[in-house]
């Protein structure tokens, strides 16, 4: 994308709607750039709910899984409780969520990565639907003296840093993308997650898609992505806070954390190159834009990193609800439809307040259509159609 307009970005930020300029000036980073629109339309999509509210729904639902989704899940549950159904969510990790839905001990599971074929086959209750709920981003953060937000990195450079093949901040590969920064002759201290984590899964998925060096170093695509990988270099920190602690205390460190954590902790972060060649600032608007242009498989079992779209932030992930297609309790089935149809429409207004992103309408509608597949006694629990979007 056009990088030429970079110097004028402070003024351009308020201007036209085309997505061309990228903020590179350190002084400009405090102001929202054009990429990071703070327009309420972007932050709160106000989707209308085409699914009728079903009567006779159970007054409680239980879910378990992803810790990544827990903050927004608790907002959803507490808001939705006013509609008569209490949702108890156990934030025990995706692995636990998968195990519990397989064993049918919860009404829905939540996972940061879609089920593998073996995992899906191990489910006691038959076929499982994947319903994307929300988007989150993983941000590359660093601690280098004199470096503000906006160091530009492409996937291959990040991959080589994490493979231990780029070890200095003034490496030609970093320099070539960052003529605006004076890069020090300093060793890079690499920080990664030590606990199995969806954050790692999203990050390594991006590296695998964009960095041949990373993928080769990790022994091929089968082992170069996942919640735990065999990190060739670096310091392992437990949780976002562990990685953030290493980064904030070690000069020359680089790490990756969830977007809301980077913002809350005021860590300096990189703009990462996306599939259209633009360097994208991580923020709610660019994360939401990540699912605007992609092609998704019918069962939605995919990842949403490195998606097309000029404004798409590339290290983006979604969290899936896991729901049995064939429900065994009518009240529960109705409650599930009520809760998730609300979450995927009205509920999408909430994520931006805690720096998760609402889903762009392309993925949001596909998620909603999944609910139409839910059955009880061989019949769909609800029938609905999604009205054609109004032209803007």
């Amino acid at each position: 994308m056009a990088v030429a307009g970079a110097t004028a970005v402070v003024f351009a930020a308020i201007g036209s709607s085309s997505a061309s300029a990228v903020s590179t000036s350190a002084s400009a980073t405090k102001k929202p750039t054009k990429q990071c629109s703070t327009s309420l339309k972007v932050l709160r999509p106000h989707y209308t709910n085409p699914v009728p509210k079903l009567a006779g729904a159970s007054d409680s639902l239980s879910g378990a899984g992803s810790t990544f989704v827990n903050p927004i899940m608790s907002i959803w549950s507490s808001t939705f409780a006013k509609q008569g159904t209490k949702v108890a969510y156990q934030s025990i990790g995706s692995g636990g969520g998968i195990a519990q839905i397989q064993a049918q001990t919860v009404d829905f599971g939540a996972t940061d990565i879609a089920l593998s074929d073996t995992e899906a086959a191990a489910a006691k209750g038959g076929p499982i639907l994947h319903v994307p709920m929300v988007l989150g981003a993983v941000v590359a953060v660093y601690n280098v003296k004199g470096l503000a937000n906006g160091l530009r990195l492409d996937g291959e450079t990040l991959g080589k840093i994490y493979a231990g093949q780029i070890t200095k901040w003034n490496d030609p590969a970093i320099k070539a993308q960052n003529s605006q920064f004076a890069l020090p002759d300093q060793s890079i201290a690499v920080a990664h997650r030590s606990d199995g984590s969806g954050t790692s899964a999203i990050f390594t998925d991006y590296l695998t898609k964009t960095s041949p060096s990373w993928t080769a170093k990790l022994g091929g695509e089968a082992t170069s992505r996942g919640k735990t990988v065999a990190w060739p270099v670096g310091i392992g920190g437990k949780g976002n806070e562990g990685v953030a602690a290493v980064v904030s205390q070690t000069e020359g460190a680089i790490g990756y954390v969830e977007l809301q954590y980077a913002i809350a902790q005021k860590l300096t972060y990189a703009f990462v190159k996306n599939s259209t060649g633009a360097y994208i600032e991580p923020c709610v608007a660019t994360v939401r834009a990540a699912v605007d242009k992609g092609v998704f498989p019918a069962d939605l079992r995919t990842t949403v990193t490195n998606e097309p779209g000029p404004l798409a932030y590339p290290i983006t992930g979604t969290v899936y609800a896991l729901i049995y297609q064939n429900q065994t309790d009518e009240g529960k089935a109705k409650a599930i439809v009520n809760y998730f149809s609300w979450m995927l429409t009205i509920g999408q207004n909430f994520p931006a307040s805690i720096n998760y992103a609402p889903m762009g309408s392309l993925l949001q509608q596909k998620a909603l259509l999944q609910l139409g597949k839910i059955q009880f006694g061989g019949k769909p629990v609800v029938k609905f159609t999604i009205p054609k979007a109004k032209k803007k």
Partner: protein
Amino acid sequence: MSASGQAAAPPPVTVGAEARALSRQRPRLGDLTFRALVSGSGALIVAIFLAIGIFILDEAWPAISHYGIGSFLSGSRWAPSEAALNLEGKNPYGILQFVYGTVLTSAIALLLAVPIAVGLALYITEIAPSLIRRPLAYVIDILASVPSVVYGFWGIFALIPAVKPVANDLSDWLHSIPVVGPIFAGPFFGPSYFVAALVLAIMVLPIVTAICREVFAVAPLAEKEAALALGATRWEMIKLAILKRSRVGIFGAAILGLGRAFGETIAVTMVIGNSVLGITTSIFGQGATMPSVIANEFTEATEPFHLDSLFVVALCLLVVSLIVNTAGKLIISRVGTRIA
């Protein structure tokens, strides 16, 4: 004293004697309940312990029978992501580096903590004025009750920045010396075996001090007085009458401290750097311990044999801790009987 006082009580009344005889023949309901409750809780503890052991073994069994226990203990590379690739291949779950990390950090911790604990205990039992004695003992007990996550937090945000210049200097001075050098090789980033050991040292200090205090307190007064009467200085008295016969007790205290250090999880996880791919020779390098890898990985252990292998680690930890604790208890009880 109190027993002899009872024996000398006023002449027995016949009714009382009759009642006593009666109770001997027919135990009352209260006695029976009490006996059942007490022996029940004893049996319960044993049952719980056995249940835990059997459960862990049972959960670990699929991995043990698939890969063989030897391949766990001989490998030092833990790479769960590689398990699915080649299920019949080499065991990707080596655990030797965790045993190494646990033993190394605990050993350094004891090396640092035991001398201080002995000094502290001696000060409290022998030297400190009685005005200071109690508050000091109290402070140490409080140190023992600080939750370990707080130690971990403090380790990350206070200890690491404070240790950094010292560790860097140490590394600069020592790293080029042959043989010893690699142990102190830099760079020191912060999270490391060394910092984990420092945090552990502070955590085991209270328990080692408390037991040393008990051990020193049972040193016979007569011997101490005898030593002083023979013209010994205070140091000579401590050396002859206390330290000499407390050696085994100090050792036992250290072993119990070791048990505490072995099992410490969250504080260590926060400051050790969590490198699971092998054994790092430098104490300034990153590593992992048996508890830390379990705490890190169990929530998302989704690879084949991943969770089972974490149970193998737990089993290994249980066995090691059991041996250490039993040894400590045995040694301490020996001291007890010898003094009595």
